[in-house]
C-alpha cells in the first residue's frame, strides 16, 4: 500500500476527513518550504500538496500564479522541489506528499528520470494539471512502477464516462474541483457538490478530495461532510503572500489558519 493509500485507510478507520493544504514550493523563498511543510503537519495536515512552480500555469488563478512567480524569482526548478521533498522526508517519514504542476518541466526532465528521482525523494503522488489520462500512455506506467500515485482532476463538466476514465487512471484519491474554472475563484454550491460526489462514489471506490475555493473553517467543515478530503490552496497561499520576507510570521499565520481548518473539520 502506498503512503497515500494507508493515510486514507487510517483516516477512514478513525472516521476523520483528510486536510490537504497546498503550497507552492519555493514561495516566498526556497528556505521556507521545508519548515513550512513541517508546520503544516504539526497544525493538522494529513497530506501535503506541493506545487511545482511554472511560469504559464494555465489553470491557476492569480493567487497561485503569483506564488509561482515568487518561487521562480529564486529559480526554483523541479529538481529543487524534489530536493525539498527529500529534506522533508528526513524528519517526516509518514506524511504523504503530492506534487502538483504542469507537464513541461516533467517532459523536459524526462518521464523515466522524473519518476525514479521523485520516488527516491519520497514523493507519493503526482497531479499534472494539463495531463489528461488519454495523454498518460507513457508516463503512467512509470509512475505506477515507482509507487507514485497519479491523481487527476474531475470537473463539474465531466460526464460519467469521463469520470470513469479518470478514476481508472487514478491511484490514491481523485480530486473534484468544486468550482467552475480556475483555482481560487467564485462561490461554492454545496448541493451540486454533494450530487457530484455521490455520482463519483457510484463509479469509484477511491477517496474523493474536494478543493478550490475553500476559504475558512466553516466551508472546510461543510465540504468535509461530503468528501474524504478537503484541499485548501489559495487561502493558504494568500497568507504566505501577506507575510513575505518574514519566515516566522508566515509560519505562524499559516499554522494558525491550518489549525482552524482542522478544528472545523473535527468538530
Amino acid at each position, binding site marked *: 500500500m502506498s503512503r497515500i493509500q494507508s493515510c486514507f485507510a487510517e483516516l477512514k478507520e478513525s472516521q476523520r476527513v483528510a486536510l490537504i493544504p497546498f503550497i507552492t514550493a519555493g514561495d516566498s523563498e526556497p528556505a521556507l518550504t521545508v519548515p513550512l511543510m513541517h508546520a503544516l503537519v504539526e497544525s493538522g495536515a494529513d497530506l501535503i500538496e506541493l506545487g511545482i512552480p511554472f511560469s504559464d500555469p494555465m489553470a491557476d488563478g492569480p493567487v497561485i500564479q503569483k506564488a509561482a512567480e515568487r518561487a521562480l524569482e529564486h529559480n526554483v526548478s523541479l529538481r529543487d522541489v524534489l530536493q525539498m521533498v527529500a529534506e522533508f522526508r528526513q524528519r517526516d517519514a509518514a506524511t504523504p506528499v503530492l506534487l502538483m504542476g504542469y507537464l*513541461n518541466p516533467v517532459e523536459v526532465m524526462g518521464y523515466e528520470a522524473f519518476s525514479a528521482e521523485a520516488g527516491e525523494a519520497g514523493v507519493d503522488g503526482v497531479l499534472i494539471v494539463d495531463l489528461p489520462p488519454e495523454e498518460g500512455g507513457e508516463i503512467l506506467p512509470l509512475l505506477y512502477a515507482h509507487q507514485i500515485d497519479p491523481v487527476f*482532476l474531475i470537473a463539474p463538466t465531466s460526464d460519467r464516462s469521463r469520470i470513469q476514465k479518470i478514476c481508472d487512471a487514478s491511484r490514491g484519491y481523485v480530486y473534484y474541483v468544486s468550482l467552475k474554472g480556475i483555482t481560487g475563484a467564485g462561490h461554492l454550491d454545496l448541493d451540486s457538490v454533494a450530487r457530484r460526489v455521490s455520482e463519483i462514489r457510484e463509479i469509484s471506490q477511491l477517496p474523493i478530495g474536494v478543493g478550490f475555493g475553500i476559504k475558512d473553517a466553516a466551508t472546510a467543515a461543510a465540504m468535509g461532510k461530503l468528501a474524504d478530503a478537503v484541499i485548501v490552496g489559495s487561502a493558504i497561499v494568500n497568507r504566505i503572500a501577506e507575510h513575505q520576507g518574514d519566515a516566522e510570521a508566515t509560519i505562524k499565520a499559516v499554522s494558525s489558519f491550518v489549525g482552524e481548518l482542522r478544528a472545523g473539520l473535527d468538530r
Partner: protein
Amino acid sequence: MIETSLMPDENGYFGEYGGQIIPPELIQIMNDINDAYDEIRHTSAFQDELADLNKHYVGRPSPIYYAKKLSKQVGGARIFFKREDLNHTGAHKINHCLGEALLAKHMGKTKVLAETGAGQHGVALATACALMDLECEIHMGEIDIEKEHPNVTKMKILGCKLVPVTRGTKTLKDAVDSAFEEYLKDPVNYFYAIGSVVGPHPFPRMVRDFQSIVGKEARAQFLEEQGKLPDIVMACVGGGSNAIGLFTEFLPDESVEMIGVEPAGKGLDTPDNAATLTLGSKGALHGFKCYNLQDDNGEPLPVYSIASGLDYPGVGPQHCYLKDLGRVRYESVDDKACLDAFMTLSRTEGIIPALESAHAVAYAMDIAKDMSPDQTILINLSGRGDKDADFVAERLSL
C-alpha cells in the same frame, strides 16, 4: 510523399507533436469542437457561407503579384507575392477567424475569446464576431498594445472587449495564458478561437484547414500565370498559420522547396529572439507538444521579436513534424534585416508589409541573388504594415 490528408492522427498528433495537453475536463469540450467541425465542414450550407464570405467580404481570391522592381534590384530569382495583405482586415488571419466564428455560432457558443500579438488576429476575430453577432473578448500584452496601437483602436471600434495583459512578459505568451484563464471559467459556453496553428487538437488542424485556401489559390494561380510551379515557397513563422496555409497545397509537390522564416530578433546568439524551430527543444506548452524555447528546467523563455506576431516561444506541431521530416527548411532573419526589407519593399514596390511578413521578404531577398532569373520564389505576404507604420517611422526617425 507525405500523406498530409492523414495528418493529424485521431489523437491530434503530427508525429510526436500536438495532442491535447490540457486539464482532463477540457478533453470532452475539445472533442465536441472536433466533432462539430467534422459535422459541418462538408455540409454545403457551411461551405457556401464561407465561400460567399471569402469572395464578397474578404475579397478572395487574393492576387499573386510579380514584384518586378524588387526582383530586379535584388538580381537573381523572380520574387512573387501571394497578396494576403489585401484581404479585408489586412492579413491572412481573417481566413481562419471567419471559419472559427462560424463554427462557434453553429455550436451555440455565447462568447468568443482569443489572444493576439500584433493585433491582426484580434482585429480579424472582432470583425468576424461583429458580423456574426457574437460577443468577443481579446487578451493582449501591454507591450503589444502600445506598439500596435492602430489595431487596438480598431478592436475597440468593432465592439470587442480588450483585456490588457500585465503579467509575465506582457506579450503574446502571457496573452495566451490570460485568455485561457478566462476561457476556463466557462468552456462549455465560451469558444477559444486560437490565433494560429497552435493549441490543443483540433485547433492546429482546423486553423490549417481554414488557412489552406491560400495555398490552394496560389498553386492554381501560379500554374495558370507562369505555366509551372514556383521553385521555392516561403513564409514567416510565428505560430505558423500563414506558412502552413501556403505550404499545405504544395506539400506533395516534391520539386517545390519550402522555407519557413523565424525571427532572429537581436541575434540567435542573444536571448532576444524567437527562433523556436531553429534553437528550441521538445516540450509542451499551451495545450500541445512542440519545439519550445525554454531553459533546462522547462520554463519557457521570455522571447522577443520586433514583430509582435512572431514573438512566441512555441510553434505549431505540424511545423515541428515537417522540420523533423526535412520537408520544410526553417531559417531566421534578424530585426535589422526585417526593417531593411520593410523599407525596401515599401520603396521599390509601394507595398508596406507587416513586420511579420517582412521577415520572409528579407530571407527571399537574401537567397534570390544567388539564384537565376528563370527561378521563382513565392512568398506569402501575410499582412500589411499599417499597424507597424508609426512604430517603424519612430524607430528609423523618419
